């Protein structure tokens, strides 16, 4: 059995769904953050797979961009989470609903 690009896509889809479910179901901000990373990497995987299949570099270039942006986002996001934890002594997003309309 050979590994066709379809399998990569399926894996990416599964990873994405796990990430999305984690984002929607978990309360801990840190875990939600990890879920977001998982979704990003699922997308990256589909990019690379599609790039290889089509024989062009565009997919890999897109992945580099995503990684750079994700790195920057992690810095900011983690800083926010740490600051919130220091002030509120909690990382549960359900308790951080001050923007409720």
């Amino acid at each position, binding site marked *: 059995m050979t590994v066709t690009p379809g399998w990569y896509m399926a894996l990416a889809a599964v990873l994405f769904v796990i990430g*999305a479910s984690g*984002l*929607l*179901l978990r309360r801990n901000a840190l875990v*939600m953050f990890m879920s977001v990373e998982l979704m990003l990497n699922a997308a990256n995987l589909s990019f690379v797979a599609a790039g290889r299949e089509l024989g062009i570099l565009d997919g890999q270039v897109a992945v580099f961009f995503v990684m750079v942006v994700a790195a920057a986002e992690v810095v900011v996001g983690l800083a926010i989470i740490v600051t919130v934890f220091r002030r509120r002594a909690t990382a549960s*997003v*359900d308790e*951080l*609903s*001050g*923007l*409720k*309309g």
Partner: protein
Amino acid sequence: MEAGEVMVSLLILLPLGGSALLLAFGRRLGQPGAGLLGTLTVGAGFVLAVVAGWGFVAGTGEALEVPWFDWLPALGVRAGLLWDPLSALMAMVVTGVGALIHVYSIGYMRGDPRFGRFFAYMNLFVASMLILVLADGFALLFVGWELVGLCSYLLISFWFERPSAAAAGKKAFVVNRVGDAGFLVALMLVFASFGSLRYADVFSQAPSELTTGSATAITLLLLVGAVGKSAQFPLYVWLPDAMEGPTPVSALIHAATMVTAGVFMVARTGALFELAPASAAVVAVVGMGTALYAATIAVAQHDVKRVLAYSTISQLGYMFAAVGAGAYVAGMFHLTTHAFFKALLFLGAGAVIHALAGEQDMRRMGGLWRRLPVTTATMVVAWLAISGIPPFSGFWSKDEILATIFERGGLWRVIWGLGLLTALITAFYMTRMIYLTFFGERRWPEQAHPHEAPWVMGLPLAVLAVLALGGGMLNTPWRLGLEHFLEPAFHGVPIATAGPGFTQVVLAIVSAEVAVAGILLAVAAYRRGLRPAEEEPAWDLVRRGYGVDEAYARVFAAGGGAAARLVAGPVDQKGIDGLVNGVGVLVRTIGERLRPLQTGFVRNYGLSILVGAVALLAWFLSRGGW
């Protein structure tokens, strides 16, 4: 600039500058400093007017055009002054009588907290009137025209703490605006017809450019303006109420400035009225009708100043009748003599009011001649002058008007008859006023202690009395001084004059007899003091001006008020405000509805993003990619 141009320009700039100075430093100048400054600028203006106008008197003067500056280059309008015998006569009357009234005001307004402000307005009034009479075209004339309206508003409501004074000022302004609207349309027609607003261009082209129809339209609209400014029927209602102002203001409005503007304007535009005989006839009919109408109202007044106010309306009617009949010189002559004796009457009435500490009701006067000998003597001169007793000034001018109208024959004889009747009534009501004020029994309380006015008020009375006595010598049938003086100003526009000697003598005797008859009738009627009959409803109706004022109040003022309330209430508050508020409420309601969407839970946002992304994806896939 040569000397003449400088003098004519200074004539306006002096009172204008005086007004500016008084507005800025009036309070610091104090009393009587501010009054002295105001008097000096107007007095200096009179000296300038006499010096600059001396050439016309001597018969060597040439009309002078003083270009000022390009004003509205797009319309080719240039601001400039015209110095000719007509404007010179008006300038002398305005500054001469104005200066005397200023002197008087120093005494009359003593102790008023806004002394300086008063003289600032008075100076501005004189300056505005000078702009009006010295303008070399309709454009600048209109500036003066509006400025005198503004000044009358400021001065009539000078004691604005009194609601009645504030209302009277407003009324004068609004009624004048009605006339001004007609005047403005006339100016537009003039510009449309000639492409210029300068008198010189308009009058020289008028005979060739203007059809009788358009000349009639222009002159009738000019008449609307004149009727408003000169308080003729039906726009006279503001003048009696204008008595709310300080008495010197009444004297200034009635004698020197403001109300004479309409007569002057008709005389100035005589070249146009010449082309529209129908309009000229309308002017005469309106004038004489107003003269008779106002005279009858004057008979019933209790307030000494309101007698004089209706008397002014009536006398202005004479002037309108004169200029309507083409008797421009007679009209201007009566304007001049009227300025003398009406200023005197008002200042004298002011002295009486001053003596009785503000009392204006003739029912509480009487027998004042013992306490106020100087005032009484001067008032008697003015009374004889306005009644038309020879040789007082009013006789000459009024007689010239009546004789000229008689001379035109035909239906003009009817107008002459009305004029004669008006002369009878004039003599009657003036005698009634003098009798009830100065003679007969005493009807004021002893503690009133009436006293003669100080000399600053007495002196102008004396000077004006001399003028009211001798002013007729300006233009007697055997020495037509004023006629020769004014003739060059009319550039060949025919001036109607009185007929040959014999008719004139007969007419003069008739009008003098009529005046004497009026006086005798009044003496007979009021010999025993007040007539109780005057308290009856019929007299009251006449006293209220036949209810015309109330009718205006009911129709125009109430209608305007209802319209204003409609606009302020339903239209503005409900309609326009409602629209604005409605937009606010709409946005607010939508916001309230959408608010619950913001739960504050991150996962809800995440879910909606996901759902959105899936929906987009599904849409793309359903279309088979992009």
